[in-house]
């Protein structure tokens, strides 16, 4: 069991955010095996516990702001800030963001919040792949998985704009148009502008100004150094290993993916559905940020998925 401190450390980010629809009932921080401290919050009571996972250090646990108030009326809800943003530690050693450690963080949080088993909800690679890995390796801890914006590396090629920008990520580019902003030097020069660009690309639905502003604000709460460190990590598994891990999942899953997802290609979602037999909800016209941009749809899908577990043998 990891250590638990009584109160979280308020930051400017959370002061700014004081008008929450629902405040946590309990907050604390837990140390991972490598000593990195992770800030967590618990809301509500009611079985089963639902843990919302972080999605990369570009945002933090407020990414689930539209889910927490609703679901915590019926369930115990746990969120935590991932490594790098903003109340958790912000290591600058790339090794701190390795797949093993990020997956291990879920167990650290489960232990710290005295949660034996939980439904995991995640978005993108940090949310989806890591919950799959945990379910495959520690099935006794995972009751079910709700996966948005299916981020499972290797199942299909990365989006073309990611391939192009990763090829020149460490180069000094003469311009910073569009995806050229996905560049180490540019992040150091104007990370807030990158964040606004990035979330505009991830949220192309009409009338998304609020969702974009929120996400860009969470990015600004974080750290460029943490982002750069995280970008140095390499994914440690090949396709066969990834597929074997996906096939090994035994708990119920629900997959949700937008037809316009600019972060994770929909081929990854279809392939994961084939490998796991899980139902895939394809949301017409939606981009990557479904929980933030389509919260009612996301909340009802999560709610009904959890209800469906109640009738099943556990």
């Amino acid at each position, binding site marked *: 069991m990891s250590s638990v401190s009584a109160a979280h450390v308020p930051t400017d980010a959370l002061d700014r955010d004081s008008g929450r629809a629902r405040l946590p009932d309990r907050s604390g921080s837990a140390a991972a095996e490598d000593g990195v401290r992770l800030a967590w919050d618990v809301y509500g009571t009611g079985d089963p516990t639902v843990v919302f996972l972080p999605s990369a250090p570009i945002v933090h646990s407020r990414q689930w702001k539209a889910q927490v108030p609703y679901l915590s009326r019926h369930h115990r809800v746990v969120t935590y800030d991932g490594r790098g943003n903003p109340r958790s530690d912000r290591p600058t050693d790339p090794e701190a963001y390795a797949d093993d450690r990020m997956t291990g963080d879920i167990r650290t949080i489960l232990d710290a919040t005295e949660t034996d088993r939980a439904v995991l909800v995640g978005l993108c690679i940090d949310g989806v792949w890591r919950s799959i890995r945990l379910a495959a390796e520690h099935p006794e801890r995972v009751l079910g998985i709700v996966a948005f914006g299916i981020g499972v590396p290797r199942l299909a090629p990365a989006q073309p704009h990611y391939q192009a920008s990763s090829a020149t990520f460490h180069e000094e580019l003469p311009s910073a148009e569009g995806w050229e902003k996905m560049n180490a030097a540019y992040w150091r020069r104007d990370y807030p502008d990158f964040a606004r660009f990035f979330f505009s690309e991830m949220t192309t*639905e*009409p*009338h998304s*100004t*609020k969702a974009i*502003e929120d996400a860009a604000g969470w990015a600004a709460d974080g750290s460029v150094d943490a982002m750069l460190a995280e970008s140095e990590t390499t994914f440690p598994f090949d396709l066969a290993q990834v597929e074997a891990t996906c096939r090994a999942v035994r708990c*119920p*899953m*629900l997959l949700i993916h*937008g037809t316009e997802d600019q972060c994770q290609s929909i081929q990854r979602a*279809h392939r994961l*559905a*084939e490998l*796991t*037999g*899980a*139902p*895939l*909800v*394809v*949301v*017409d*016209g*939606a981009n990557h940020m479904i929980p933030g941009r*389509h919260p*009612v*749809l996301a909340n*009802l*899908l999560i*709610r*009904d*998925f959890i*209800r*469906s*577990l109640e*009738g*099943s*043998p556990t």
Partner: protein
Amino acid sequence: MVASPSAPVGTRPNASPSAAGAWQPRPEQSRARDPDETGFVVRDGVRIAWERYGSGEPTILLLPTWTIIHSRFWKAQIPYLARLFRVVTFDGRGNGRSDRPSDPAAYAATEFVADALAVLDATGTERAVVAGLSMGAAYVLMLSGDHPERVLGTVYLGAALPLADRDPGRDEVPFDDDVGRDEGWARYNAFSWRRDWPGFVEFFFGEVFSETHSTKQIEDALDWGLETDADTMVTAEHAPYIETTENGVGLTGRAAALALAARSRCPSLVIHGTSDRIIPFAVGERLAEALGATLVAMEGSGHDVLGREPVLANLLIRDFVRGLERGS
């Protein structure tokens, strides 16, 4: 943007098939609540389209406003209020499903008031709570001042009444002179409207919805604004506005507003945004004072709190109506 789940790919016995079906797809501009009854009233050959929702007590009559939009501007109120009360709306002459007469006199405020009374009759409504936004506030005031037997209570939102000076920039260009400029408030001009009606509508609702994150409200209003046209709007612009008589003397403008307010006896609620760019907040203050009504100052809000702060507006209206029931 409409999200619609497709058929699930693959199944497993203990995963929820209902999860994928929980969300019912529907076109974006479909209605959260359809009317239970619709009809037309005809006055002087002009057809006025009305709708009735729900069957609770009392009835709330949601009035038209400026002809630039039609009754869908109440879209965020109707589904909620109709669960609790009986709701009647109608499209003002010149937009929506109502006719577009070509005589300026047909757009007089007195005609809108007569339409409201005709709709109350057609829907079998003896008395109603009456609510109006912007120019609709003049119709509310004329109904409660001159037809008190039909009005249970009144709600005024962003009231467009001549009770305080407007920002001088608003009136920099005479409406009927062609100054050849299509920018800012210079667009408030017959020639500019005929040159670029959509441009005016977009500009105007940008001023109405001055709050951040209002793109949806502006887009909706633009759709409604394009259901009428520049010629109709120019015609309506030449119609007389608020008027009444007192001791046999005809009154208009500020004198009419104050006389009507003094005569108004029913409970009233005045709601006004402190950052309203169309009608200064001071108008709401003076109206509340003249009526002896409660003033709700919406801090930082613009002109249309119905569209931009619908939950708050709905709860204010609900609580006001419930307060009437307790008082009766």
